[in-house]
């Protein structure tokens, strides 16, 4: 039979589990809804993660592969500024500033993506 202490422990653990459960999803959905994290990957490997809202000064850097892409990050947004690849779709994609936004350089095999659950569409046909 359960003693008094056991029952207290039981209730205590139940409260803890519910709190952890709620906390986990608050944290998770908080991230998905508000934080704009850009993930830059080259050849399928993540090379840099940037929380766009926490960027104070503009950041500029190059991704070198078969071609060279210059990335520019400002507060809340990111883009490919310059590229010597032949099709330059990545440059034409211009700024990414919404969750789910995407810039791809197929010749240089790299992707910039703002991670998270997009608000309005799950994907785009093009």
């Amino acid at each position, binding site marked *: 039979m359960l003693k008094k202490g056991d029952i207290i422990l039981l209730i205590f653990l139940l409260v803890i589990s519910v709190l952890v*459960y709620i906390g986990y999803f608050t944290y998770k959905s908080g991230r998905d809804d508000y934080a704009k994290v850009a993930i830059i*990957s080259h050849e399928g490997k993540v090379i840099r993660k940037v929380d766009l809202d926490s960027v104070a000064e503009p950041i500029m850097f190059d991704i070198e592969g078969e071609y060279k892409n210059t990335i520019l990050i400002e507060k809340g947004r990111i883009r490919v500024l310059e590229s010597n690849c032949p099709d330059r779709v990545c440059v*034409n994609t211009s700024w990414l500033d919404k969750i789910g936004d995407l810039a791809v350089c*197929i010749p240089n095999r790299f992707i910039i993506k703002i991670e998270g659950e997009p608000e309005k569409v799950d994907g*785009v*046909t*093009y």
Partner: protein
Amino acid sequence: MTRKLKLFFIFLTICIVLISCSKFQKPGLSEDFLMGTVIMQKVYGKNADQAIKAVNKKIADIERLMTINAPGGDVNKINEFAGRELVKVDKDTLYVLKKAWEFSNLSRGTFDVTVGKVVKMWGIFTDNPRVPNVSEIIDALGFINYNDIIIDESKSMVGLKTNGQVIDLGAIAKGFAGDEAIRLYKEYGIKSAFVNLGGNVVVLGNKPDGSPWRIGIQNPQTQQNDYIGIINVSDKAVVTSGDYERYFEKEGKRYHHIIDPKTGYPSDSDLMSSTIVTELSVDADALSTATFVMGLDKALAFVESLDNVEGIFITKENKIYVTHGLKDNFVFEDESKVFEYVEKR
């Protein structure tokens, strides 16, 4: 004490189970560069990671079989032996070629995979695209004819009638790859998945919360993250062909990548983009190219004549037309304020 410990572990387990079984489960994600484009997968379920791997492997296999941009594979072999002998091909190649012939025939040659010789001439998808001269094009047009594809199904052998003819599956192979992805997801017990093969979207089931997938239709005036409308789909392929996807410029003129098999030049219909929604992505891929080349009037009539096929067409005059079956589904949402949705015509 031991009993308390036991209780503690029971609750810990409940905690973990609650979190992992929740409908907010994290999908398996992957982005891979295959078939000359980027393949993006979002897969829900416990076998998601294995399914993603299997799909990437399968797509790499399809690429090896069907590419003409690298040596080896079935299609290169068929082209090499064109006008001489039939060659033995994989069952996947056979299936895609049969599909290609079917849609060439159905579209009366506005879609034609024997367009390869002309595509090569333009250097489309290479680092050095060029504008061929008129006599070259007229000469090459003589090599385009889908009826010259010889298929011996029982022996799984394929050939071309004339030496110099070139099959290019660029407008249909990715479509087939999308169907194979869905087949593999099902094999791995997946109920909910999304795959985007360079703009060809194919979805399995609904999203994990039971709602359909929301697919944006790209704004054809830009390569930015911008769409002109949304459709809600489950178990469907949504494929778009447009003149904005890939192009090159010479002497101020823009040349896009979809060659009209009748003229040998980039298609010059009144359409900027053509989107097809249907069950199989191999069908959607061929039909989006065919309708893009046909132009608005023929495309609308053609798609309305087919069962379970719907379309969204955007003209160079920025007008959007949607087939009957999609009218209730399509949500016009144009932030650029450039387009006009023509509901009745």
